[in-house]
């Protein structure tokens, strides 16, 4: 039944910006403090107080616009969005309406049918509202610490045709803004919130169907659930000969369903008009160019560079570039060591394992790229084997000491001296005549058994290459 309809999805993302101070005053934006402790006359909306735009917010929005190929408006306006709510101290929200800072951008996503471009209609800046704290006995209270913290709203074109595409778009956008350092991307804390506009239409129909707006969905999983549920709901209505009504719906994560919040008729008339307390925002061409120059390398470019310069598989590059901190770690490591593939194996392997086990982020990794590169060099010069290296790595993790100290202290230096290995080889051959006969009879798989035995006897320190060569000769009876 669903295949009768084409799904059309547009997304609105609200990203909280990581500036130190609020968008229109100097109050701190840090979370978790005493209610109303981070406030001043401006963000309290006291009579007589006036907003002053935080330039950093503009910088962040422009950065995002440039990273998504938007055109940056040389002149943009702030507007008042008027409505009453106790968490909105001025009775209006300062936002942008006509003339937003960024327009006409795009983002490329990977779909099951290949690459697809999703249009970005606009990006604008606005202030957040406060928070209502509901107290059963004392009634509701208002905490305005969050009031006036900077938000960026990123509105897409209705270019996505499935929940999977919507998620691909959101993940891509999320990755970019976190890469840009403008948003911490924390979905649970609401730093990255999403509203979805969903409609369906019979295949081939030109005009869009009536859309429903799904509000404030705060995880990638719920977005898929919410969209899938909505598509099915609308299809059911159409199948029964009904009509979809334009409305705002609230998704309930517990039941996996949504309910109507308000219909179009009940929609607010926000009476937008240019905020007379703020002058038009002028952004010069030079300033935009400067911001463009200061843009960090974005994931796409990074993946390409890793593949090309470090000669690693595309898969590795993608994994490493997924998060900027990971990529930075890897980048630093390769620059110190030189072997791209060895480095990617270690970062994706041991480093990631240890981080997961300890619940740490790579930015807190006790084994720095310097320490790790130093150890990898000891593998290269045969001081230690790859196997012993894991032991050294764990020791570095725990102690913070460098690899040379640990190798020295624990006597982990690899044995390459033939005269030291030969007696061990002879001993194992002598102790296992049966296996030797089998080997010589053609069961070459037993090679591993002999290597294991000798390694054990050397406490793992025998150089595997030297050992292999010698063992082969001896078993061949030379």
């Amino acid at each position, binding site marked *: 039944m669903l295949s009768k309809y084409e799904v059309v999805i547009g997304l609105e993302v609200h990203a909280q910006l990581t500036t130190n101070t609020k968008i229109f005053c100097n109050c701190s934006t840090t979370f978790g403090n005493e209610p109303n402790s981070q406030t001043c006359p401006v963000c309290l*909306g*006291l*009579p*007589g107080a006036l907003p*002053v735009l935080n330039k950093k917010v503009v910088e962040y929005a422009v950065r995002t616009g440039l990273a998504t190929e938007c055109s940056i408006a040389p002149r943009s306006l702030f507007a008042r969005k*008027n409505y009453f709510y106790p968490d909105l101290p001025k009775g209006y929200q300062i936002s942008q309406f006509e003339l937003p800072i960024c327009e006409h951008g795009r983002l490329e996503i990977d779909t099951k049918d290949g690459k697809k471009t999703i249009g970005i209609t606009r990006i604008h800046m606005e202030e957040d509202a406060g928070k209502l704290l509901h107290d059963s006995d004392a009634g509701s209270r*208002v905490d305005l610490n969050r009031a006036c913290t900077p938000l960026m709203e990123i509105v897409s074109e209705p270019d996505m045709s499935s929940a999977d595409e919507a998620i691909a778009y959101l993940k891509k956008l999320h990755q970019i803004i976190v890469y840009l350092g403008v948003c911490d991307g924390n979905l649970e804390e609401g730093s990255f919130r999403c509203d979805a506009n969903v409609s369906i239409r019979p295949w081939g129909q030109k005009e869009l169907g009536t859309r429903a707006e799904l509000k404030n969905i705060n995880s990638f999983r719920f977005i898929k659930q919410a969209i899938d549920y909505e598509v099915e709901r609308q299809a059911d209505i159409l199948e029964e000969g009904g009509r979809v009504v334009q409305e705002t719906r609230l998704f309930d994560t517990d039941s996996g369903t949504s309910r109507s919040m308000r219909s179009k008729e009940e929609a607010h008339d926000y009476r937008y*008009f240019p905020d*007379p*307390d703020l002058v038009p925002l002028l952004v010069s061409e030079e300033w935009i160019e400067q911001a463009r120059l200061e843009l960090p390398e974005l994931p796409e470019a990074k993946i390409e560079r890793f593949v090309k310069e470090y000669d690693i598989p595309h898969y590795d590059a993608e994994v490493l570039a997924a998060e900027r901190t990971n990529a930075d770690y890897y980048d630093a490591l390769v620059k110190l060591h030189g072997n791209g593939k060895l480095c990617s194996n270690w970062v994706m392997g041991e480093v990631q394992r240890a981080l997961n086990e300890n619940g740490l982020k790579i930015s807190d990794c006790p084994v720095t790229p310097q320490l790790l590169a130093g150890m990898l060099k000891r593998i290269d010069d045969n001081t230690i084997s790859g196997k012993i290296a894991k032991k050294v790595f764990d020791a570095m993790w725990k102690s913070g000491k460098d690899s040379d100290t640990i190798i020295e202290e624990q006597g982990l230096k690899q044995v390459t001296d033939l005269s030291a290995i030969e007696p061990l080889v002879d001993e194992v051959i002598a102790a296992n005549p049966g296996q030797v006969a089998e080997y010589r009879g053609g069961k070459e798989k037993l090679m591993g058994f002999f290597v294991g035995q000798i390694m054990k006897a050397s406490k793992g320190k025998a150089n595997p290459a030297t050992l292999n060569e010698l063992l082969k000769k001896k078993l061949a009876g030379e």
Partner: protein
Amino acid sequence: MQLTDLTIHQLHDLLRAGKTSSQEVTQAFLDRIADTDEHVNAFITVCPQEALQQAEAADARLKAGDAAPLTGIPLALKDIFVTEGLRTTCASQILNNFVPPYDGTAVAKLKEQGAVILGKLNMDEFAMGSSNENSSFGPVRNPWNKDCVPGGSSGGSAACVAARQAVATLGTDTGGSIRQPASHCGVVGLKPTYGRVSRYGVIAYASSLDQVGPVTRDVEDCAMLLGAVAGYDPADSTSVDVPVPDYLATLKDGVKGLKVGLPKEYFIEGLDPDVKKAVEKAVDILRELGAEPVEVSLPHTDYAVACYYLIATAEASSNLARYDGVRYGQRVDQEQGLIDMYRQSRAAGFGPEVKRRIMLGTYALSSGYYDAYYLKAQKVRTLIRQDFLDAFNQVDVILTPVAPTPAFEIGEKTANPLQMYLSDIFTIPVNLAGTCGMSLPCGMSQKGLPIGLQLIGRPFGEETLLRTAYAFEQAGDWHQQQAPL
């Protein structure tokens, strides 16, 4: 001569010379307020204790030889200026218990100079009115005739100076709210160029039009007080970073060769004959002083009042949304839920004129009407501004009446809001153009009521304005007339 009859510059000289003290002067004004305010009702709040403490501090500063021009000078503020620890009502019941935690920029500047603040002055509620009859603290009466209005909205600021209850005051002017009451009360009032004085800490009525200005006894005081509060303020994005000139330095430069524009659209039928005569006489005096009168045209004048009442009310409808009873001000408590709390608090807290303007402005911004009203008004505003810029290509200042009539009687126009709105017909265009204008006394009506002359200057042309006004003032003695109170 009494201390309360003196100007800022006269008192400053006496204080500096040690011939009187700020405490003595302050006490004299406090006594005068106590004696006269039951007849005038200029004050909403008087703060004698704080004033005397400030006077004491000022005297110490004077003694130390560290006096600024306003050190120890008793002033009073329109109750629209937010004052730390001092109740600020905007003459509204919705703020009748509001004690701000901060000082606005203009007030902070006065305090830095060591000025003494006697109290907060009556006004039309939220600065909406032309007669001061819209105050929830009762009307102000004109010191020249208690049956007449003092003008509005800064009626308290003008009446207070005329009644010699303070040396000078600050008011605000959105469509004539300093100039029209100054004219009706026979004192000097100046509305600076938009962006000249910070609006930070001034309760907003119409943000794109509001401007702070002085109300004083003479032009020299006006120059001094303007100089004290003017200047760029990073806390007000609409304040403009233009250096503040020394207004006193050029005050006495005269008007020789100055071109004075007389807009033909302002000398119309219906202009009160006494007003017409007084203004024409003023033109003659300026001519005698060496100025050259020139007829100019401001062709879009007719649209100004309509344009103003769309823009000002639209902004007001949004500016006044914060008075919702949630965090400060008055809340009606027997409410049935949130929406009812908003409705009842606002219904009880706002007076009829404020409600009228909120409704008008809400309508003008509504979806479907925005283009026809608000946007159209903005376009007209651009044309009006251009009218002035064109005129200033030909002349240095523009001269007009301040109001079509002298002060009218209390109750005379309250039944007809449109009639009331027309009393600002000559002052409103200056706010729309964003330029500066001032009012100074130029005569008396046959009924013994003061008549004001309006001078309009180029944007940031306050110097020329003050220089012209000073020359005119010194040629006569209108500024020395005292209200019979």
